[in-house]
Structures are given as structure tokens and as C-alpha cells.
């Protein structure tokens, strides 16, 4: 199976290990993974802030970059949702790209969604093993692409993984892109609620897959002095399959050792 990897701007810069893990897992599962170098950003920040002409230009660019791909897989649920939910509409009035937008939307998947619903992965059969207690934050944009409990199902396939449900798991963490900078008191109140829920689980590790959510929640945990570590599910799976060395995440409040 041929997969083109869409790393996304945030993951490329801030959480590259998540992307590395995802690529290694895909290759391990027999996918031929390529990485079209010209990719940049899906245009979601521009779309959400109302700069639709710019967002449309970036959508056209994405259509071109992934024109020859069979499948496009991305570790970011929100970027997958941008492509799937909004590209067809954004490009519908451009005869040169209307079909391209529809085609790209039809072949784009979020990574966990791809593993579960397309590759039908069975990590239990693959004897994945990863020791640790985790809780999981459900990123909002997974709603837009119809992904519900795939991540939890995957975690339950991993031997040794102790999964603790997060209260109000699917309540928004308050990132929302520019929203977190433009409406700090509201965004802050929302993320603090999330931090409170995390603290109540007493789990040492939070699994959060969307880079925006992770930056937001991890930053708030650090500010609040809640000592938890953050990992993405691709990393856990890669480590569980022996594709990456196990790396204990630093609890975000630990000061640097020098």
C-alpha cells in the first residue's frame, strides 16, 4: 500500500518524534511511505480566521502536492478534518481544482484512523508491549472526521498499557488556534478544566495526538505545576513494536538538568 505522509506544520516543528513514529509504524506494517517535500500547511489557520482566499491558495497547493498519492496519512486530526470537511467546499467554485479537492478529501486519513479502519491493525496479534499508565485526551476535530474511540481501542490492544479514562474526555481543551491567543481568559478557563481532569486521574502520562492540543495542555500543566508527561499514540505504538527506543516523557514541571 502506497502512503504519502503529510507531516503538518506544527508536528514537523514541535513534535517531530510523533511523525517519525508514525512513519516507522506505517513502514513496519508494509506501507511504502513517501514524503512529498513541497508540502507546507493545510491552510487551517487562515481558514479559521476568515482569510479564505489565502486558505484557498494553500488548499490548491495541497491538491497539487498530493496529486499522485494513493493515500495521504497525517498524524493531525485537525488537519485531516480541514481537508476532509472543508477542501471540497473551499474549492468548489474553481473548475481547475474542484475535483482535486474532492479527491484529496477522499484519500486523506488521520494516522490512528488509518491504522484501525484501513489497515485493520491488530497490535495484540503483533505482540505490542508497552508498560505504563496513561490517560487520553480526545481532540475535537476527530468529531469532524467521524473518529470516535479508535485510539482507545488501539491502546487496549497493547499489552502492559494501563488505560485510565479521562473525565470529560471529549470536552475541548481550549486551543482552537488563534482563539487561545485572542481570548485568553476563556481559553485559560477551558484548559484549566482539562488540567483538573488530568490531575484527577493520577495517571503519569497523557496521550494527546493533536500537536495544538498537546502544546496547550502541556503548557497549562506546567504552569499549574501538574507533573505529567505527554506522549502521542504513534510514539507508544512504535515503542511497543520495538521500532523506537522507549523514551520516558519528561514530566513537564521538572526543571532542566544541565
Amino acid at each position, binding site marked *: 500500500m502506497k502512503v504519502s505522509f503529510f507531516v503538518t506544520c506544527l508536528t514537523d516543528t514541535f513534535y*517531530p*518524534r510523533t511523525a517519525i513514529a508514525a512513519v516507522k509504524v506505517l513502514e513496519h506494517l508494509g506501507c511504502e511511505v513517501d514524503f512529498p517535500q513541497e508540502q507546507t500547511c493545510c491552510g487551517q489557520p487562515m481558514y479559521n480566521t*476568515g482569510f479564505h482566499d489565502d486558505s484557498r491558495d494553500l488548499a490548491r497547493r495541497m491538491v497539487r502536492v498530493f496529486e499522485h498519492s494513493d493515500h495521504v496519512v497525517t498524524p493531525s486530526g485537525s488537519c485531516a478534518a480541514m481537508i476532509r470537511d472543508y477542501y471540497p467546499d473551499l474549492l468548489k467554485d474553481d473548475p481547475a481544482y474542484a475535483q482535486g479537492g474532492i479527491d484529496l478529501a477522499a484519500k486523506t486519513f488521520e494516522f490512528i484512523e488509518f491504522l484501525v479502519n484501513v489497515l485493520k491493525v491488530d497490535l495484540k496479534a503483533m505482540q505490542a508491549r508497552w508498560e505504563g499508565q496513561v490517560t487520553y485526551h480526545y481532540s475535537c476535530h476527530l468529531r469532524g472526521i467521524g473518529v470516535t474511540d479508535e485510539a482507545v481501542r488501539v491502546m487496549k490492544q497493547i499489552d502492559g498499557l494501563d488505560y485510565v479514562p479521562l473525565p470529560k474526555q471529549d470536552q475541548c481543551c481550549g486551543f482552537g488556534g488563534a482563539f487561545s491567543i485572542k481570548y485568553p481568559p476563556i481559553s485559560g478557563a477551558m484548559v484549566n478544566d482539562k488540567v483538573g481532569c488530568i490531575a484527577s486521574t493520577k495517571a503519569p502520562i497523557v496521550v494527546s495526538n493533536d500537536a495544538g492540543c498537546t502544546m496547550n495542555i502541556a503548557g497549562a500543566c506546567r504552569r499549574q505545576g501538574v507533573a505529567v508527561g505527554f506522549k502521542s499514540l504513534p510514539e507508544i505504538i512504535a515503542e511497543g513494536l520495538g521500532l523506537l527506543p522507549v523514551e520516558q516523557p519528561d514530566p513537564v514541571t521538572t526543571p*532542566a538538568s*544541565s
Partner: protein
Amino acid sequence: MAQTPVDPLAFTPPSMHGEHLLDPPLPYDITKRASAASVNIQLQQFVANGTTAKDSARKLVMPATFGEHVDDVRALAGSIKQHTLDHLDYYLEQFIDRATEAGVKVHFAADSKQANAICLEIARQNNVKLCLKSKSMVTEETHLLPALESIGVKTIETDLGEFILQLDNDAPSHLVAPMIHKDRTAVGRAFARELGVPYTDVPTELTQIARQYLRALYPKADMGISGGNFLVAETGSVVICTNEGNGRLCTSAPRIHVAFVGIEKMVPTLSHLGVLLKVLARSSTAQPLTCYTHIMTGPKRAHEHDGPEEMHIILLDNQRTQILREETREMLRCIRCGACLNACPVYRKIGGHAYGAVYSGPIGSLITPMLRGLDNYKDLPNASSLCGACYEACPVKINIPKYLVQLRADIVKSNLGKKADAVFFRTWAMTLKHSLLYRMGGWFQSRMFRLQAGRTLRKGSPYSARGWLNKLPGPFKGWTDQRDMPTPPAKNFRHWWHEHQKSKGQ
């Protein structure tokens, strides 16, 4: 201190009705109220308790009732409303004909002022002194009560929540549960202060106090005012759904009934009404139906014992025909169930008054700018994380996030947005259109962040060890006001990919 309970017929409650709360100075800036709400733990607790319970209950009851077909039922309900809106002119005509045949006096009000004027004229002509009303957001929209007060008509709210708000110079903060932001101790204090009863905060006792007070008024009221959950074109009926029974008393005990209803409340037939009734209460309060569903088709007939002698329906436009244009029509599907408010994580933190308008929450963030001007309420479409919980909850499938973004685009197109935003996002977009600029921008950002991070930088894997910033400059300060900022690690994915390709010999 012994207190004398007030004589319900003699007492006049305040009618300012928290005007300032729902009608703040424009253009409205959400910052002050949102900031105050975000540190008001008590408000958050009341609102969170109310909304979370209803939201969770809805999520259980919908699949319990409709099994795998929840989405199908929502799609059906949505398409019924959409169809009616697509042919609203036809159904309005039909409604007016049928209602008139049934003996109703139908009026059309282009705006709030006209709607109030019609009602005041009815009151004058009939020498109305005491008026009772059941809950109606439309009458909040038109600011009806001060208008009635100005011609000497005493108007009392009979919905328990609205009654308490009226006593307390407060205003509704939720479409369905108007006093979600108050608790029973506040009710007890308001009753003790205004009604001269001893303080109690026991819910059954509070309800009895209100019941006794209000029931004394019904036989004496000259006019009853209601809203309308639905208009049925086929029969010319107005439908109201209540849990307290006050709606029934308001609309049948007084001699005159006046219903204020937005034109978008139309449905074609009683069968279509049935579908919407199946989802309304379930989405709102997780009930199969509200305790009372009144389908009112004309005033009392000659042979009937009960009912108003005269029935008026005031159909309100007030910018709805503007929203009816194709790009925004879907917003008018709303059946005012409040499910989106209950699901919204923003509403849960700031409550309804922070929106500074009659209609709050996700749907309010759409229709308030449409009803009162986008330039007046720029914050509302923007104060959302676009999480989509509202869309998921909506029984008529209004794609609220899509329309919030559409309003944001309208703000940009009309040059109502901040210039700095345009500069930032358009420049950023420019760097994203060129792969080299993107890579350089990423490199620069990474270096800058890591430089600023100083001693917080951890040593470790170049693809995951990072540092932290607790202060971002200028326009990005909002982030670090509330949380720290992680830096990128030393190397990015692209770097790894190049190494990876080299190791594969490519």
C-alpha cells in the same frame, strides 16, 4: 422579624428585567464579562452543573430512543426545517389563511418596534391592566416588558425561572433554563425580599410560594402573552412546549391571548411537527416530551368552556428575512432547544450573559450578529474554539462551526477585523506558499524559541527534548498569560526524513 406576604394583585415587580444585561452598549466587547466569568467559580459551577447534566443526559437518551438512527432522525428534522425555510413565503401564506379561518387575528411585524406597538394597541383597545406571560425569547428580543410598563400595563412573568429573574432585576442566560446562572439560595433571597415571605431555599417550598403567588393572578389577568415553539402552516396553529403548565394557563385563562412568534418557527403540517417534537425535548432536557405540549388553533369557540375569547399572533421578521438568504438560511432551522448551549465548552465557562445579547451560546453567536449587526458583535463568532460539540448536539444539524467561520470571513471581507491580524495571517500564508520560505521560517522560529528558553532546555533526543517559555512577546502574550509555551526540539521531521532516506540508500 415578622414579614407580611405581599398581596399578589397589589404588588408590582420591577420590570427593568435586567435590560442592561442583554442590551449592553454597542459595539459589544466580550472581554470584561468573559474575564469576570472565568474567575467566577460559583457561576462556573452553576452553569457547568446545569449544562453538563443535560448534555450527558441527551447523549444517553438519543441513542436509547433512536438506536443507530440518531443521525438519520437529525437529518430528517433538519431537512423538514430547511424545506420550510426554502418555501417560507408559501407556508406563511398558508398559515395566515388557516389561522384567520380559525378565528385568529394575524399581524405581521417588520421589526421589534412594530411588534411591540401592535401588542400595546391590543392592550389599549381592551383596557388591559394586568398581563401574564409565559417564556418567550422573542419578547426579550423586542424588549416588550418595558414597553407595556410604559402604558401602565403590569406584566408578570409566569415561567418560574423568568419570574425569579423579574423579581431580581436579572435577565435570562439560557434559551431553555433562564436562571441556570442562579441557585436556590438566590431564589430564596429574592422571594423573601420582594414577596415578604420567610426565607427558605428548599425547592418544594420555593415552588409552592411561586405557585400560590402566580395562581392568584391568572383569574385576574386581562391578557396572556406567549411565544411559540412552532407554527403549523396546515392548521394555522401555534405550538408551545412547557414543563410547568404556566403556558397553558397564560394562554387560556385571560380573555386575550397574544403570541409573539418569529417567522422561522414554521413547519408545514402536524406530521412534520411530530418529528420535531420527537427531538426537541430529548435534545433539550432529555425528556421524551415536555410535560405540556399545547397546539393552539384559534380562540375559544362558541360551544367551548375554556380558552381566550380573542387570539392574536404577531409574526416577527426583525431581520429574519435577511438571514433567509441562501448563504445563511440554515441558521434559521433552530428550534431553540438549547442543546448547543449545553454542549459548548465556552458557554460552560462564561455563561449566557457574557455574550451580551438575548441569544447566547453557539446559535446566539451566529444569529446575534445577523440580527443586530456584525460590526456590533464581532467577538461572538470569534470567541469559539470551533470544537464542533454544538454541531454534534444540534437536532436539526445546523453546521454551526462552518457558519462561525463564514462570519469570520465576512468580518475580514468587510474590513471589520484588526489590521494586525490581516498583516500576520496574510504574511504567514505567503511563507507557506513557498517551500523554501516555509523551511526557513520554521528554522528561524525554532532557533528563536530555543534561544529564549535558556536553562529550561533539556538535553536528550534531538527530536523530542525541548525547553519552555513563560513569556511570549507582543500579540502572542495572550498565550503565556494562561500557560507556558513549549519550544521545538533541536531537529525537525524533515531532518529525520533526509537521514532516513539516506539510510535507505535513496
